């Protein structure tokens, strides 16, 4: 009995402690709360620069794009964050169609590249692009030389049996990067031919990773030879000191559009608009250079990292982001990929 009495005591303590924690419940509206899908060093740099430039406070929560999406949906009745920062264009489009975003046309919009202005306009300003990244792959030069494999230059090369069990890419069901790659291939080669190529390449894939950048990180550490990824992630490996060479495929390649968007009904809409203006400004986009990021910024006057892939060396296709971006398009692409590629005999 006394045991129970003691435990009742500790439950009373539970209530007291819980009460103390409520003290910190933040509903203060003077700061802007950002769901930040960048890597953590970039988010930190951005926050610091925002606070220095605008004199306003910002706090961020680091999430992956899918996590942010799930969180915004789960919080729909009572949104806690103001900005959905670094959203994949397709994700932001979905949220906008569900009525969870707020349109905002920033005065900075005229400073952006034409492609960015076009996408913002197409999306009725529910999102505004902050950068674009080009799809491609990278390989570990040491492993390639050691195994005397030919240098891959084109998408087609990746189906070469010489690379058996040497390629990693992400699973398009879990990673937006891989989904983007599959759409690119289908658009380049046509849907049926595209899946045939992917099935042939499947023999060379040793693992479909969960995260989009895991493949190229594994290539850096020598766990695989080739990783399919965005060029900026591959360059990052080289800059970190790993023996990785970045390839922009010869046939031409697709890209991702990363946007920022305001969450409808967030606690600080005024701060959200300030944040948007800031991340679209050259000052906001130049943060990328200081933290070694190699994407192509949307503001014409923003700097691009000297190591970033050169536009002149990359052949971009006119990627139709909407074709496979809808719910039905996604289901269709993924079920074909699963049946014809993932389950295909090796």
């Amino acid at each position, binding site marked *: 009995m006394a045991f129970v009495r*003691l435990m009742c005591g500790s439950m009373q303590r539970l209530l007291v402690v819980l009460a103390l924690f409520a*003290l*910190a419940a933040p*509903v203060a509206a003077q700061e802007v709360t950002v769901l930040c899908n960048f890597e953590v060093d970039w988010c930190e740099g951005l926050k610091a620069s925002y606070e220095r430039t605008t004199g306003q406070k910002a706090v*961020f929560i680091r999430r992956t794009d899918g996590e942010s999406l*799930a969180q915004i949906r789960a919080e729909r009745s009572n949104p806690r964050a103001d900005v959905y920062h670094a959203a994949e264009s397709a994700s932001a489009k979905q949220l906008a169609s569900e009525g969870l975003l707020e349109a905002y046309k920033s005065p900075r919009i005229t400073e952006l590249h034409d492609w960015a202005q076009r996408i913002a306009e197409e999306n009725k300003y529910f999102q505004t692009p902050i950068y674009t990244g080009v799809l491609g792959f990278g390989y570990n030069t040491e492993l390639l030389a050691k195994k005397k494999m030919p240098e891959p230059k084109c998408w087609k090369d990746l189906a070469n049996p010489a690379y058996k069990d040497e390629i990693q890419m992400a699973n398009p069901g879990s990673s937006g990067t891989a989904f983007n790659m599959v759409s690119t291939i289908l658009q380049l080669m046509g849907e049926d031919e595209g899946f045939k190529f992917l099935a042939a390449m499947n023999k060379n894939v040793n*693992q479909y990773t969960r995260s989009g950048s895991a493949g190229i990180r594994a290539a850096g550490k020598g766990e695989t030879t080739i990783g399919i990824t965005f060029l900026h992630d591959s360059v990052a490996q080289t800059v970190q000191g790993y023996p990785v060479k970045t390839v922009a495929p010869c046939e031409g390649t697709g890209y991702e559009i990363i946007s920022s968007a305001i969450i409808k009904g967030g606690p600080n809409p005024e701060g959200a608009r300030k944040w948007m203006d800031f991340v679209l400004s050259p000052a906001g986009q130049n943060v990328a250079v200081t933290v070694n990021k190699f994407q192509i910024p949307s503001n014409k006057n923003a700097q691009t990292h000297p190591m970033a892939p050169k536009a002149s060396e990359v052949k971009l296709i006119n990627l139709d982001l909407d074709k496979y971006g809808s719910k039905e398009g996604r289901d269709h692409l993924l079920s074909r990929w699963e049946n014809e590629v993932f389950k295909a005999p090796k």
Partner: protein
Amino acid sequence: MRRSNVGLWLAVGWIGFGLLPWNAIAGQGFFALGWLAGYPLDVRTGPGAVQLIHHGRLWLLPIGVALAVPALALNGRIGDKTAAALLVLCGCAGLVALVAIALAIDINGWTSPSFATYFGILPGRQPGLGYGASFVAAALLMLLCQGVALRGWARGDVFVAGAIGASIALVGLFTLYPIARLFVRAFLDRDGNVSLPALAARFASGRIWGYGGVVWNTLELGLMTAVSATLMALCFALIVTRTRLPGRRLANVLAVLPMITPPFVVGLALIMLFGRSGVLNAVLDFAFGIRPTRWIYGLPGVWLAQTLALTPVAYLVLVGVVQGISPVFEEAAQTLRASRLRIFTTITLPLMAPGLVNAFLIVFIESLADFGNPLILGGNLEVLSVSIYFAIVGVQQDPGRAAMLAIVLLSLSLALFVIQRRLLARRNFVTISGKGHGVPNLALPRTVTGLAVVFALPWAMLAVVVYAMIFTGGFVEKWGLNHALTVRHYVTAFGAEIANGSVQWTGGAWNSFFTTLTIAAVSAPLTAGFGLLVAYLLSRYRFTGKGAFEFVTMLSFAMPGTVVGIGYILAFNAPPIELAYTGIILVACFVFRDMTTSLRAGLASLSQIDSSLDEASATLRASSFATLRRVVLPLMRPAIIAALVYSFISAMTSISAVIFLTSPRFDMATVNIVGRAEVGEYGYASAYASVLIVLMLLAVLLIRAVVGHRRVLGGQSLVERSLAPATEVGVQHPASRQRSPASHGLLVRPRAPTEPA
């Protein structure tokens, strides 16, 4: 006076209804006290009674009535039966009214237009329930429990009835409710309409069932890990408690070590060791020309990582049980000339069954819910926890599929739970009774010692190597590329400088570090206390719905953290209960998730302790508090240590559960570490992990020092016994006499079978 507490709880209820603000305070919160300005007449900060009378909020009337009527029960002239009926009726009615109000008003006002026409429109954003409502809820619940106790439930003991009621309410609120919120999704199609075909289609999906399907993989992995981890834990427990091998103290630490590591780090270290470009493959390639392979990615790698990570959990559950086995039966068998091996297999091992089975259950369930290791090392191996995560956050976001997979996962855990109960049912494992024996445990048979060492040694070496790698990783520029020594990472993570006479915490890790430490320090005692309380209730009392209650306590633990996280957002983000973005939600998540381990350790331990000890103490007129302090709790020390250690460490290292629950002010260390590792800052990640490991090690030592050892005769002198010549059997060993100060009374007075126990 069995009704004396009615007054107390009525007072609590009226403080809640008449004094404290009924609703949650918006803005700076309750403790900023800004709400006092408009108090008590402002409708947003007013107490329930004022809202009822002054603002005419008639829907609060039933609450007021339910709190007023039980005052009659204070009158001594009313018989127990009438008082009980009164309390039960008012408690039930009040609680029902409270839940109905909570469900009827959400953030936008009345949930149904008919309420609005009847009661009038509620303008603006509605706040959630606040301290006033919480106090009232607690009071009503306790009044109800007092009522049922008066009717003879739970042996008529009001404390026990209250504790059971409170446990059920808390577990219901923080485990059942969030999970139910998510599970409903399984029955909705992707447009949000109720659809059984959608459920059927999800259920029948090809990749789930059959050989090589998700369920198959998950079960295979779970069984393999549970067997290997329980076996390893047994080896360690035997070495530590039953041998005199040199280094067994070290083994005691090593067995727990891998638990105190942020999960991500072990996977990374294993890749550095066994990966294709890892140390082992490099050596094999260099020495024997064996071509490096990627064997680590897939089932073998995940199995290795999980065995490494979960053996400590099994060890913590097991070691108390192994220690607690009384030598009396072994002595009897020895007298009958059984061989040591025979004694071990027919007596020692079967007596460990509660420990083995509970450890197996815990490891199996943790393996099912483990998310980090399959993610890093899984290769193309698909298991339930990962599938669920990507059903929530993947390219095709389908919470319905996630919910269905989670239901499958839970069914597996439920099946295992039922099997476990069948196995242990109607057997008696009591080995700690009042009878002193003074005989230390027998030494292990040589074969068993040998086997234990053969299993444990490589494992221990692996653990040491993994730890060495993590620690050196924090001191070199970049592991694998540049091995120049540096303290740069520690400065980046934990830098501090003194500016303007105050310390500036400039390092990037401080914020998450302090948060994590606070949350873990708050959660651990709550988790352990609550888990052990429930264990005590479950093992010593019978009440209706006990089996179901026991299973519900495991629900949250058996779910992958991400599922719990999403459930918590769905349940606690908006009124009536707003906890998102606070520390409470993290603490609640940890307490109700990790209490299962405390509960299992407590159950295993209590099943060995003869309940006649409690009764004997009471017969000798010891107050019940003295019984607790000097009999039950001291005997449960290993379980208390296990519970505290596990809860603290789990709160420090868990990642998947908090993915959706961290907020700008409540960032957690593991999330920070993973984020840094992602951008290639392995030095920073290793440095941070090293600091956490050292900190947790200190915490474990502190917990052990504070809680102390269980002193059961024989259990402590086992070491001396193994050296003692056979003729000393049955003779009290001098060492144990020294350890028998009178203050330990009954328990340690040796060789007194004739004394009243």
